[in-house]
C-alpha cells in the first residue's frame, strides 16, 4: 500500500495526472512517513496559494523565500498534524504567520521593491500589486491568487476551504476596491455594467 502510494506520488512529480489521483490526505500521510516525493506533490499543489498569501503582504523578492520557509516549516512540523485532511488550512495558516513575520521585519517599502525580480515587471504591475496589498486581507489574498497565480475561483475555493460563492464575492468586492484605488475605469469596468 505504502509502496503503491510512493510510486503514485513519485510519478506525480512528472505527470500532473498522477498527482490528481492521490488525495491531499493520502499525500500528507505518505509525507508524514518521510516520503519526499509525496511532499513534493503537496508543494506542487499548494505553492501558488502559499505564494499568493506571501505576495499579498511582502515585496516580490521576499515572497519566494517565504514560500520556501513555509514548506521547510511544514516538513518539520508535519508529524504534529493529526488530521491529514486539515493540511490545506494548516499550511495556509503557516503561510500567513510567516508572511506577517516577514512583513514586520521589513522597513516600509515602495513600488521599487516589487521591481527587483527576474524578469523585471512593468512599473504598472508593481503599482497594481501595491494597490492590491492595501486592500483588506481577505480580498487581497483572493485577488493575488486569481490575478497573479492564475487560479480560477473554483481552484481558489478548493485550496483555501472557502465556498465557491465566498470566493466569487471576495473577487468582485476586491476588484471593485482595486478599481477605486487604481482609479482606472478600464479595470473591472465590466462589473459596473
Amino acid at each position: 500500500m505504502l509502496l503503491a502510494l510512493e510510486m503514485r506520488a513519485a510519478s506525480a512529480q512528472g505527470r500532473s495526472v498522477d498527482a490528481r489521483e492521490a488525495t491531499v490526505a493520502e499525500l500528507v500521510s505518505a509525507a508524514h512517513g518521510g516520503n519526499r516525493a509525496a511532499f513534493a506533490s503537496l508543494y506542487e499543489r499548494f505553492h501558488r496559494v502559499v505564494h499568493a498569501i506571501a505576495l499579498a503582504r511582502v515585496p516580490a523578492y521576499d515572497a519566494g523565500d517565504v514560500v520556501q520557509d513555509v514548506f521547510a516549516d511544514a516538513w518539520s512540523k508535519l508529524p504534529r498534524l493529526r488530521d491529514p485532511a486539515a493540511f490545506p488550512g494548516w499550511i495556509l495558516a503557516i503561510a500567513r504567520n510567516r508572511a506577517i513575520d516577514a512583513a514586520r521585519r521589513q522597513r516600509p517599502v515602495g513600488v521599487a521593491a516589487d521591481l527587483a525580480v527576474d524578469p523585471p515587471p512593468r512599473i504598472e504591475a508593481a503599482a497594481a500589486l501595491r494597490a492590491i496589498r492595501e486592500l483588506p486581507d481577505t480580498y487581497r489574498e483572493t485577488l493575488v491568487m486569481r490575478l497573479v497565480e492564475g487560479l480560477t475561483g473554483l481552484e481558489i475555493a478548493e485550496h483555501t476551504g472557502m465556498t465557491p460563492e465566498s470566493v466569487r464575492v471576495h473577487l468582485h468586492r476586491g476588484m471593485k476596491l482595486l478599481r477605486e484605488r487604481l482609479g482606472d475605469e478600464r479595470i473591472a469596468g465590466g462589473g459596473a455594467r
Partner: protein
Amino acid sequence: MRPSMSDYLFDKTGDDPAVAELEGLLGVYAHRTPLREPPLREPPPREPARRRRWLPAAAAGGVIAAAAVLVVVWRSGGSEECTAAGPGFAFSVEGGPARCGGGVASRGTLRVGAWLETSSSAVAGVRIADIGELTVFPDSRVRLVGTGADGHRMQLARGKLAARVVAPPRLFVVDTPVAAAVDLGCAYELTVDRDGRTLLRVTSGTVSLEGHGLVAYAPMGTEVVASPGRGPGTPVAVGAPDSLRAAVARFDGGDPSAVRAIVDAAGLSDTITLWNLLSRTSATERATVVARLDELAGRPDSVRADDVRAGDSDAIARWRHALEQRWICLECYPGKKQ
C-alpha cells in the same frame, strides 16, 4: 444573469479585456520556483516527547521526585530531544550552561528541529556529520534544520558561530534571518545581531551568501553584511579602506551613484568588490566597473569586455575563474597596475 466580467473574473469564461490586461500585467509575479531542494530533514518522531508520560507521575510523586527528575536530566546531558537516538549532530558544551531542546545540556545530540542555545559564558562544539565542525559562541541560538546524504542545513537565529567544512560545494548551509551562507569548501564566521543583521567573514575557501534574489560571492579574506529587507550586500576585503567601505555601504543602501566612489577607492585587494558589482549594477555603472577591474587585474582573452558590460553571466563567471587565483593567493598574481 451575471455580467460577462463576473464569469471571467471567477472562472475565466466569457471575456473581459480589462481583467485580462491585469492578469497579463501581474502574471510576471506568478510563482514558478520549484521546491528549492529536496527537504533535508527527516520528520521528527510522531510523539513529541516521552516525558509527557512520566511528568504527571513525577508530579504525583511530589517535590522530591521532581527534583530527582531534574538531576537525571542535568546529568544525562539534556532533554530527551537532545539525547535520544536518531539523526543529528553530536555536541558538547564548555564554560557554562546551554539549553538544548528545552533542557539544560552539557553534551548530547542535536536532533533535527531542536535548538541549541548557549549562555553568556558557554561555548559549544558541534560535529557537522562527517564533513566538519562548528563552534557556537556565547549567547547564540542555533538549530539543526536537516541532515542527510544530500546535505546538512542549520539555522543561526542570533549570536555567532564559526564553521570549518571539508566537503563538496553547497553541502552545508547555515540560514540566518536575512540570508543563507552556502559553503563552497571553507572556514568562516557568521554573526547575527538582534535585528537579524548578518555579518559573514570568510577565513578560508569561499562562501556564497544568498538571499532576496542576491548572491554575494565571498572568498577568503573578505566579509559581507546582509541586512533585513535588503539581503546580502557587496563583499569587501577585510582590510579594505574606510572610504571603500563607506561607498559600498551607500551602494548597498540603494545609492547607485556610489559606484563611482567605489571604483575610485578600489585597489588591487578590492577586485572581489568590483567583481561582485558586475552583477549588481546597471549597464552604465557596470562599464565603469569593468574598466577599473580590467585596469587593476587584467582580463583574460576568453572574456570580452562587451559581453561583461552587457551583463552576460557566463562572461562574468569566466572572469571570476581567472580572478579566483588572485583571491586565493594575492601575491602570486600581481596585477597589471597597483
